[in-house]
């Protein structure tokens, strides 16, 4: 039995206890899967987990308050579920978590960059991932790519490839990487402050204010009551200026301090490829270095900004 059929069985096994199971199914083109709502045993036939299972399905859990749901998770997704439980936004007893050893997911933008001149992902006719190789077919011609070269950035620094919290686990656990050195941030911070600002002005000028970054975030839980669109009070201008748009990104990132698990969905969801996840990476590093806190790794822990200590063990105020 392959891990695929085992996972399908695991999904079918929890169906009698839940309203539905959230998983991944076939998408509109060979490079993409789509979230799949599994309600009947035969729905599970279309379920597949693998390198195209990019969506973090934890984003849907708060919608189902008061109902019992099953969810299939990658390691990173499981951290979002844990953080939702930690923050009491989802009740542990309302969710059945099925994990598997994730080997990483693709970044379609990276595949696009390797397709060659004048080609784009929408022209891809086939995609097969085998071993460490991704074979992409465009206009009848196949191109081989190394999986590690087209894998999402987060996968190369993944410390938790297995679900950190689960009710069922299919397959053998994989080892994660030991450290995240925040090399991406270090690289970005080589730029001067002026260069960084120019970078964001350029990037944000493409923003169409669709708020896919916000809605793809499992921990952006204000949902219909977001500060960005509130009219009364009218917090944010609706102008199309780059600074107006950057303003929202700052608010979004700050509200995720000590909560973001680094799932990267904000960047992935952006239809115009603005790397907004970089703001959250800075928050992640701050939470780790200031509070030794890694969100979504333990449902019992308290997020650093939701508590108060007279003296933080990692902040040596007296030595200042």
């Amino acid at each position, binding site marked *: 039995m392959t891990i695929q059929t085992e996972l399908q069985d695991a999904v079918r096994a929890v169906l009698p206890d839940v309203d539905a199971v959230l998983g991944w199914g076939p998408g509109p083109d060979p490079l993409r899967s*789509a979230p799949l709502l599994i309600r009947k045993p035969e729905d599970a036939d279309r379920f597949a987990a693998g390198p195209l299972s990019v969506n973090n399905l934890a984003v849907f859990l708060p919608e189902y308050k008061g109902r019992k749901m099953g969810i299939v998770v990658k390691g990173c997704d499981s951290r979002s579920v844990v953080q939702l439980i930690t923050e009491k936004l989802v009740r542990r007893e309302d969710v059945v978590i099925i994990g598997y050893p994730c080997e990483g997911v693709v970044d379609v933008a990276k595949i696009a960059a390797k397709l060659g001149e004048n080609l*784009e992902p929408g022209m891809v006719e086939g995609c097969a991932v085998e071993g460490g190789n991704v074979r992409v077919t465009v206009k009848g011609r196949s191109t081989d790519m190394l999986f590690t070269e087209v894998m999402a950035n987060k996968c190369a620094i993944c410390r938790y490839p297995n679900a950190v919290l689960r009710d069922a686990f299919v397959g053998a656990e994989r080892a994660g990487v030991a450290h995240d050195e925040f090399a991406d941030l270090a690289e970005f911070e080589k730029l001067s402050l002026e260069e960084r600002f120019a970078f964001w002005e350029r990037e944000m000028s493409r923003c169409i204010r*669709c708020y*896919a970054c916000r809605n793809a975030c499992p921990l952006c839980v204000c949902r*219909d009551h977001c500060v960005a669109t509130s009219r009364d009070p009218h917090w944010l201008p609706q102008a199309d200026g780059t600074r107006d748009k950057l303003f929202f990104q700052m608010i979004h990132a700050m509200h995720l301090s000590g909560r973001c698990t680094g799932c990267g969905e904000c960047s992935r969801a952006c239809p115009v490829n603005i790397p907004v996840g970089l703001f959250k990476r800075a928050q992640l590093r701050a939470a780790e270095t200031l509070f030794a806190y890694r969100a979504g790794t333990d449902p019992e822990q308290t997020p650093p900004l939701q508590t108060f200590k007279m003296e933080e063990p990692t902040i040596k105020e007296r030595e200042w």
Partner: protein
Amino acid sequence: MKSGTKFIAHADLAAWLNELAALHRVVAPRAEGASVVYRDLDPEKPLELFRKPTESAKHVLFPRSEELFSFAYKKPAFGIGKAGAKNDEQPTEPPKLEVTPPADPVPTIIFGMPGCDAGGVTTFDPIYNGRRFPDVYYLKKRDATILIARACNDVLSTCFCTWVGGSPANRKDADILATQLPEGWLLEPLTERAGAVMGSALLKDGAESQAEAAEELHAAAEKAIGRVPDLKGSDDALLALFDDADFWWEQSAGCIACGGCTYLCPTCHCFAITDETAGMAGVRLRSWDTCMAALYTLEASGHNPRTQKAARLRNRVGHKFSYFIRNNEGTISCCGCGRCIKSCPSSVDIRRIVLDALAKASKGKEAANG
């Protein structure tokens, strides 16, 4: 081939666009990282005329956020501000409101828009040129803009313009159709407006020899989209499913309810109005709004008739493939560009939803007929 068809060599294209830019604002697609966006022509930066623009061109005619007017309250001079007045004198008149309309739009050319984007503009026209309320902001820009569509030599797996009456070589909605050939571009004038920009010495006659090659490309692209399902009856099918909560739950389960689909869409045309005020002055803005957002239907009473994303997705699909059709003499308000599918973070596929609705409706009919 239309009379007046011209040809321009690849090497001359930039020079021609620069010529046009002397008298027009020229907007054309440009690559920025993995995205392709419409930008004002910059001779230093190359155009992207192969890959499909990530966004539609609608923001040129219907800006993401547009100043309707600026305003300022001017207080009449009183008290110490007025010569010879006493310090405790009170104003006798209320502050005066001064309103300034925005400057008129400049003549504009959109070059290199795929045919579907031109189709989007044609969907906009009757909406903003309503018999009772013609929209001066849109119409002024529309009158000042010439659309140069490019025929799509390649189509994407998400393209479905032929399903909704369009074509990769769209001669219906643009002023000029440009076809990219190995040696250069074939430029077919489609409207009288085209004449204004086709007088350049860089454009050559004798394009007849290229016409056949262009037709072959057009036919190949149309064929590449493949089977064209019959969408007739989508309006009835979607209305019949209006209250089918189960159907809409399943269709919307993967949707994250962002507004990406509607903002990338060439035909979505909804807006909201806000006053952005600082002190005694401000601007009234009209900015894009989306039926995928909660605020869209929030009523003044505080009641919101659409609390679930399922109802919002139903509205997006229903409006395009049902309600709009009924209110606009059979026109589908979708041009089949496929951006809502291509760029959806959750791979929601509007084609799938419409086809599922049609299939469900025909099944229902069969059952009723026994």
